[in-house]
């Protein structure tokens, strides 16, 4: 923890209605205080119209992803003391329609997952036994390294802010396609790679690299995208 945590901060919030106040003086009661605590303080004591989203407040649901001091993060995980600034600026995720203040319509992001058909198409849906799947087997080990996405949209926001992604693409969706392509249980397996636009510079594009480091659950997206690149370079994935 930071010993020099401020006792008050100026919270600046990007408001969708410019007529509403955007700067608030907010107490920081202790070293555990999060950006989410500051947002809740505003709602409960200063301006109940402030729009933001949260649910689990334990870093597990990804509902509270916002941009804090210019960087995508989860409001429930971002400790105010850790930011080291006496002014904290909160903005909505980039490239998503703003519903209200720092709360976005996540539909375009979820659409990238739907468009990528990012769900197991089971090879053996009626199988009645559990498979033997050794965790050290290379494909499985890679899948597991890439697993744990909480679909918060932080990577999508960071990429789009750097440069527009091709339509219907997000690092999260590409990462899931990679996992499914390598999953022995998937009926399509490596055929899924055919649907990833090969001619597109997408995967090598600097915009995608912008998602490096913003994932709040530390999925190595760069490694995943590089692996996807390599697989796409291999002829005849089917």
């Amino acid at each position, binding site marked *: 923890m930071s010993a020099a945590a401020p006792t008050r901060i100026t919270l600046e919030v990007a408001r969708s209605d410019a007529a509403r106040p955007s700067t608030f003086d907010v107490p920081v009661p202790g070293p555990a205080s999060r950006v989410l605590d500051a947002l809740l303080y505003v709602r409960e*004591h200063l301006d109940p119209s402030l729009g933001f989203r949260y649910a689990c407040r334990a870093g597990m649901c990804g509902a509270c992803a916002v941009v804090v001091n210019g960087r995508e993060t989860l409001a429930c995980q971002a400790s105010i003391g850790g930011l080291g600034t006496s002014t904290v600026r909160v903005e909505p995720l980039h490239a998503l329609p703003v519903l209200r203040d720092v709360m976005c319509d996540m539909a375009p992001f979820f659409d990238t997952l739907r468009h990528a058909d990012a769900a197991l198409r089971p090879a053996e849906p009626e199988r009645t036994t559990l498979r033997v799947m050794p965790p050290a087997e290379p494909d499985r080990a890679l899948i*597991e390294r890439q697993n744990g996405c909480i679909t918060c949209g932080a990577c999508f926001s960071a990429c789009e802010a750097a440069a527009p992604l091709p339509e219907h693409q997000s690092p999260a969706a590409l990462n899931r396609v990679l996992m499914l392509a390598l999953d022995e249980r998937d009926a399509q397996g490596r055929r899924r790679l055919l649907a990833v636009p090969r001619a597109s510079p997408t995967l090598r594009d600097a915009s995608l690299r912008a998602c490096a480091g913003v994932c709040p659950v530390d999925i190595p997206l760069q490694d995943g995208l590089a692996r996807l690149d390599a697989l796409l370079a291999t002829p005849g994935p089917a």
Partner: protein
Amino acid sequence: MQREDCDILILGGGGAALYAALRACDANPALRIVVASKGLLGKSGCTRMVQGGYNVVLHPDDSFEQHYDDTLRGGGMINDQELAWTLVTHAPLRIVELENRFGCYFDRNTDGTIHQRALAGQSFNRTVHRGDLTGIELMSRLAEQVLVRDIAIRNEVRGVDLLFDAHRERVCGALLLDINRGTLIAMAARAVLLATGGAAPLYRITPASLEKSGDGLAMGYRAGAQFVDMEMMQFHPTGLIAGDSVLTGTVLEEGLRGAGGHLLNVHGERFMARYDPAKMERSTRDRVSRSSFMEIRAGRGTPQGGVFLDVRHLGKAFLLQSSPGMYKRCLSVGYDMAKDPIQVTPTAHFQMGGLRIDGECRTSIPGLYAAGEDVGGVHGANRLGGNGVAESIVFGALAGDAMVRHLPSTAAQPAMAEARQAAARLDPRDGDTNPFALRRDLGSVAWDCLGIVRSAASLAKAATELDRIAEHLETVAVPAERAGDAILQERMNIDNLVTVARMIQASAMLREESRGSHYRDDFPRTSAEGLYNIHLHRGGDGAIVSERRAVEFTRRRPEALQGETLIPGAQPAAGAATLTTEI
């Protein structure tokens, strides 16, 4: 008010809701299925927050009978014996489906067979898990399966009330509120499932996902459905204290106590010696929570009103290896587990009581189904770790199947006059009460009077206080512009939570003994006469009608199951070595 139609309306967004949607869709893809979730797809509810895992009999040396007996013993023998048997016997079917059809991957042994561990109160290592973040794997896979199917997701849409047909015999839809747009929707449906979760956030300190407010329970109550075991609320002993942060209350998993962690009062005493000298910190959740509460009440709590969880002696290497998620969470709020005792508090965790259902998730009202934490009876007086998510999945599936099987052939025709009447509760009105302050007030009343230790006096006080809060609630404004209004949302939350609190109060008053998670310090003993369930419903005059009904021992007599079990230690108990299994 808009009028819309569907075949199956599912209220809720957690494991039970999504599982029901998937099963119903796969049984008949032509059905129009609507999932109305108070939060975003896959991000709402408590399945997402599951750490421990899913209890399931897979190993040949384990058995349904052992899992069943553990569940009844944990439940103080007042479980619904048929529902508990269903839980145990269906759990393996669903774990296979979760992996083979929906794409979950649970932790493996090095040889590739599934890994199982033990949580509290189990006689065998039968918990399937994915590290200490099992819920993320479950909900991510279920949500993406829903996403690629023809299932209508209505994000951030909450139920207001259930709708009936003109004869008021059958539920045939629900009045919904689109939170962001402020629009009201009378959604007609041929079957309605309540799967919105329990009301643990009623209490001042809770680990539950904070958008939950017992909405399904309150809607079911207002509709006149039957409830059971509403006095039973589980408190987890080790909720993190993180000052005034919303992180306070989030659970530190019980494996830390199992591995040899100590609980200390402010004087540094291992106070469990006073309450359970044989089992100490490895005693059951209810007993450890109560002991901590007693210490705090006796003035031996920490400066922040908790007790200390001390795991320093376990060593940094062990802690990092066994509980990396917990280590990180503690560090982020200022505790280094290897160096600092952590302040913890009991935290309102899981509601065992809920709607009464039959073996196909049908409530007492035709057309109305319930699954997951909305349901009572499966866990009796206390739930075992690992049985909660198993319940959500098993009964979510049963509900999805049953709604399709029993779907009436005729279209639903909700009585619109009634819908308009329900909508009138959201008509604009003036007021100046801060609902967030009122919510904190309610949380303290529940904590102090309906919490870990109860008495006739505290329960009487609760009744008075709940009336006061309900009266105050009338002075919270309802804005003309409902879209995105946080005050309206909190007003509705408090209304529903007060409804649930009154059910808890009435049931707790009627149970004049202590059993499982229900403890009365005016009746501190478990009574031989206490083998009953408390049933309740809303009477014709609006007051709660409650009664005791003897448990039906259809499969096990109570005398057959004596004794208690410990939470597992660092060294597995005899017969519970790390197992490999394939079924």
